[in-house]
């Protein structure tokens, strides 16, 4: 949607929540998920959470992660990963114009539109 450096994204998401410090990520151990980790992940996922939600999610996710962590004990290094249930091959089609959606119908469902385009909030965080 717009080109932003990782640093800029990090800064902006932290700016949005000045009350919580960013937590440097830890190495992969069978870790626990605490409130600080939930805040970091919510920042990555772009979801504002209330303090209550952070506390509740930390407790719930910790239990879930402990349960799902067992997967790392099941398969050895010799087992290949499967990303897809049925083997996939590339699908091509002829390079000819296809049907496209009606612009007016699409924009009629947008939160905001202008000049036959989506209107979005300001991209950069500087004061206007």
């Amino acid at each position, binding site marked *: 949607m717009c080109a932003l450096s990782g640093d800029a994204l990090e800064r902006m998401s932290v*700016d949005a929540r000045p009350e919580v410090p960013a937590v440097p990520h830890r190495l992969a151990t069978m870790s626990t998920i605490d409130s600080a980790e939930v805040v970091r992940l919510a920042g990555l996922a772009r979801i504002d959470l209330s303090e209550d939600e952070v506390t509740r999610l930390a407790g719930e996710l910790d239990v879930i992660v402990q349960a799902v*962590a067992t*997967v790392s004990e099941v398969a050895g290094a010799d087992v290949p990963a499967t990303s897809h*249930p*049925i083997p*996939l091959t590339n699908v091509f089609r002829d390079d000819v114009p296809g049907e496209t959606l009606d612009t007016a119908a699409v924009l009629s469902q947008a939160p905001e539109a202008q000049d036959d385009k989506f209107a979005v909030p*300001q991209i950069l965080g500087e004061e206007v």
Partner: protein
Amino acid sequence: MSELIRLTAAELAATLAAGEVSSVEATQAHLDRIGAVDGDVHAFLNVSDAEALASAAAVDAARAAGETLHPLAGVPIAVKDVVVTKGQVTTAGSKMLEGWVPPYDATLVTRLREAGLPILGKTNMDEFAMGSSTEHSAYGPTRNPWDLGRIPGGSGGGSAAAVAAYEAPLAIGTDTGGSIRQPAAVTGTVGVKPTYGSVSRYGLIALASSLDQAGPCTRTVLDSALLHDVIGGHDPRDSTSLPEAAPSYADAARAGAHGDLKGLRVGVVTELGGEGYEPGVRASFQAALDALTAAGADIVEVTCPSFSAALAAYYLILPSEASSNLAKFDGMRYGLRVEPGEGAATAERVMSATRGAGFGDEVKRRIILGTYALSAGYYDAYYGSAQKVRTLIQRDFAAAFEQVDVLVSPTAPTTAFPFGAKLDDPLAMYLNDVATIPANLAGIPGISLPSGLSDDGLPVGFQILAPARQDARLYGVGAALETLLLDDWGAPLLSRAPKLEVSR
């Protein structure tokens, strides 16, 4: 006219073809039924009276003009709200898409319209198909027609309940880890998850793209087969759509209903039974096995050791894919947009505010979990390991299907539970899908049909699994078992459900 709603789709289609009733009459009868019982059941999020009646009138006119029609033309259908319908509000059970009118039809909806099936409305579901009870719908839960204090299963509880409550003879569901089969099990109906790629995913609001598959929700095996014939087949708009032509599933079901089970090798999966499965569920399952044995099938026990890790792998793969798929709900192009309470309303902060306000608890939980599983430092330990488990599960299935023709298990470990029983314990909720998840991880087809009632008087589902692309086998064996059980019961299981109170 009230009898119309009790007909199976196949029976209704024959009645329509014979000119005994019109599609407008049949459609109106179902709309009346929705008006009478859906205040209690809440299977529908949206009912499209006018549009359904207009479609029905068009079919009646075509029939009167002597046109050749599809066998199911004029039979009304309900569609799960995760499938986009042009001009009809589609929300996926989320506040994020409240009031959203899609500008296009899913391929399966195009096929329904072309075949002349009037769409009655859109059915309730757990938000973005995340859940096993419909309690995670942003618009309130659907209630099980067998007991309005209990869950109808999920995520497609609305479609299953609509069919069970005679609000629709047919419905569309989607199944990512059991969302067609588990609701079928707890409502005493039939549900099929086709082979991955059998039904186009174009126009499904994606949950987990490598697991999602749309399929039929009906009251009989033949009706599911008829509907699968309508919606299945290759679609160039879905690059994972299977290119080869499919056989007639309806033919397979009809042959199976009068067929012979002698020599059929049926494998009972050791890992999908026993401890954790309610005694009443196990007893009903055993009774169905006994019926199969009496009809000449050979029952053997088959072990699939990696299935014990399926649930864990699924709850890493699904949230990972979901966290990526749901990134598109950012308040920019469609759906909800929420401005942050204070500070500059940058795109970045609008996204976070929108997603914080628009997503419900379970969706947030899974997106955060998926973000965690995919984040640097954890990827190999979690997502990478889960994908290896997926390989092992596929190998287990491959080995099992060398020994047997079909695999069977109870569809769900319990019957319908009361509202709230598992809402505060996500892990307990996830366990509902323990028997259905392996099929999604391997892409193979599965069916759930009722095997009877448990000791609590609630329906139990019997799951049959077949190798990939062998969906026809499910319909054949499923129809055979259905015939055996029906002979024993004397009437469909649903006839034993309590009568719903009819309001005006």
